[in-house]
């Protein structure tokens, strides 16, 4: 945010040396904070790329995860990630849209229901991801559902984990729809649901899409809960159904990174590049959707 009037420029002549020195020191500290973030990011990307560069070939992409460094690949991890993350994203999105529509369009901001669900969402958003792993271990992999360490277990747990992000994104998108849309619909005699379904939700689609892509990216990069749900394994085939064993990209990175043989470090870095590329594609899609919708409004 830049201030329109910027008097510090015209008044600098009245600033004495001591204040000037303090200002310089303060600005230096700010730059230090910025550089800390920027330099770390650059070093991280460059170091990973240089380490993993040698692995960026077809053998690596088409090979399966393996305990032998020279055979180590990522294909089963890529497909595992897709099998786990896509259903998680879609189911979480549907629940999030329903919740957001209910809270924004059917309840009043000061109502008890809304206060209660708001508190629930805030609490869920603050739960560490590893705790979702415990939940999955107790109720989904074992216990009442007893699905074992399979694709569907991982998918359900990730869906629950990203639910708060998805809901917040959908709510913001719905809130951003101009109220004239609703007024117009109601004036034509629409019922509340007709108004939501035919006017509000279609107008909110770009916003919901951008927001939910962020949620899906989180699921794609998440490792902690899946450590507990059997994804930390070498898997030599792609999943063919929801009941199959699986591994995901973040956990093959983890597995390669913890192998003693230094040859595996290249494989870990190579897998990171693949994961970052997938995230890049997702986020690029989000940006394109955002820009398209901005033009049309």
């Amino acid at each position, binding site marked *: *945010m*830049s*201030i329109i009037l*910027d*008097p510090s420029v015209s008044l600098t002549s*009245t*600033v004495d040396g001591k*204040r000037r020195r303090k200002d310089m020191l*303060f*600005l230096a500290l*700010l730059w230090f*904070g910025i550089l*800390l*973030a*920027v330099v*770390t*990011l650059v*070093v*991280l990307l460059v170091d*990973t790329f240089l380490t993993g560069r040698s692995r960026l070939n077809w053998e690596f992409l088409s090979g399966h995860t393996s305990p032998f460094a020279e055979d180590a690949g990522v294909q089963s991890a890529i497909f595992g990630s897709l099998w786990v993350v896509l259903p998680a994203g879609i189911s979480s999105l549907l*629940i999030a849209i329903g*919740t957001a529509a209910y809270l*924004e369009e*059917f309840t*009043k*901001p000061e109502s008890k229901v809304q206060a209660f669900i708001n508190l*629930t969402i*805030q*609490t*869920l958003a*603050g*739960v*560490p*991801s*590893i*705790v979702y*792993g*415990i*939940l999955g*271990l*107790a*109720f989904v992999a074992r216990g009442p559902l007893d699905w074992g360490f399979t694709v569907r277990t991982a998918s359900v747990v990730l869906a*629950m984990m990203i639910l708060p992000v998805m809901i917040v994104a959908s709510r913001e998108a719905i*809130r951003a729809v101009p*109220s004239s849309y609703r*007024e117009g619909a109601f004036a034509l005699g629409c019922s509340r*649901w007709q108004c939501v379904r035919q006017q509000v939700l279609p107008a909110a689609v770009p916003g919901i899409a951008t927001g939910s892509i*962020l949620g899906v*990216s989180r699921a794609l*990069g998440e490792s*902690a809960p899946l450590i*507990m749900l059997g994804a930390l394994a070498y898997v030599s085939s792609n999943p063919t159904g929801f009941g199959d064993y699986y591994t995901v990209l*973040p*956990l093959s*990175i*983890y597995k390669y*990174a913890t192998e003693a043989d230094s040859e595996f470090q290249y494989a870990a*870095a190579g897998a*990171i590049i693949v994961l970052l590329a997938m*995230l890049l594609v997702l986020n690029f899609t989000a940006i394109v959707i955002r820009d398209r919708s901005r033009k049309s409004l």
Partner: protein
Amino acid sequence: MSFSPSQEAIELLDNLLPSGAQQRRRIYERVVQTVLMCTSFITVIVLFAVAGSLVPPTIDFFQEVSFGEFFGRTEWYPLFEPPAYGIWALMSATFLVMTIAIIVAVPGGLAAAFFLNQYASDRVRRYLKPTLEILAGMPTVVFGFFAVNFVSPNIVQKLWPFGEVDFYNALSAGLVVGIMILPMMTTLAEDAMNSIPKALIEGAYALGPTKREVCTGVIFPSALSGIIASIVISLSRAIGETTIVLLAAGASAKFTLNPAESVQTLASFIGFAGIGDQETDSTGYRTIFAVGTFLFIITFILNIISIRVVRRFREVYE
């Protein structure tokens, strides 16, 4: 709800429909509303499931291990014979990693927030914001790999002035966790700064201070509640971080505050113990849930504090 006609208005319009259609539409509306309401209660079910998965095994755990043993000892060997269940070994490590992370994230995040809010030109903002977004979206396993593969050997082991550093150490884990939370800290702090009314800041500038004086004298105190809340949320994130700590700090649970040593935090213990396929009906298995409950309670309290701080100390601007 941005716009809502009164219930009477809707019913008035309803009355224009023929009575059969009216009836059908009302029932349909009622059904849809009920379905949506049930959907929105899924979040509540998830929260109950989280609590429900944690509490029963924790109760069983405390029937086998006394509170005195859990909270009174500093040795933690739950999976060995003879086992020891002193949570302070994990607590000290959690505190250690959290403190290092906060030392990086809070000053760094505040600096970035002040910079974005008052100093950065639009052009700089346009590059800086996406950079922070990329950093915020970076998977934790990537940070973990970076910590163990770059930060530990190239920075921590080379520059640590006080003797030997373990290859797996709390310091590189803490530093990288700090970098991981920095963008979130920046965003939350800058949101707080943005919600200060422009008139207050313009009024301050009219009195002839420098930018630094406005930052420290006006913006910082006005945004304080939001800044405190963002620090509390950062604390909670640092405490709950698993993968980075698991990769970079190793797995030796010991009671220490020495950042050069390998340590195990609450969260990284859960991940570590969850890797091995534990026998489900053992005290070792239930330890995961006991520690999980402890972790959940800590983050829950921090979360409530942050909500309260924002609500109670928010300067109300009309």
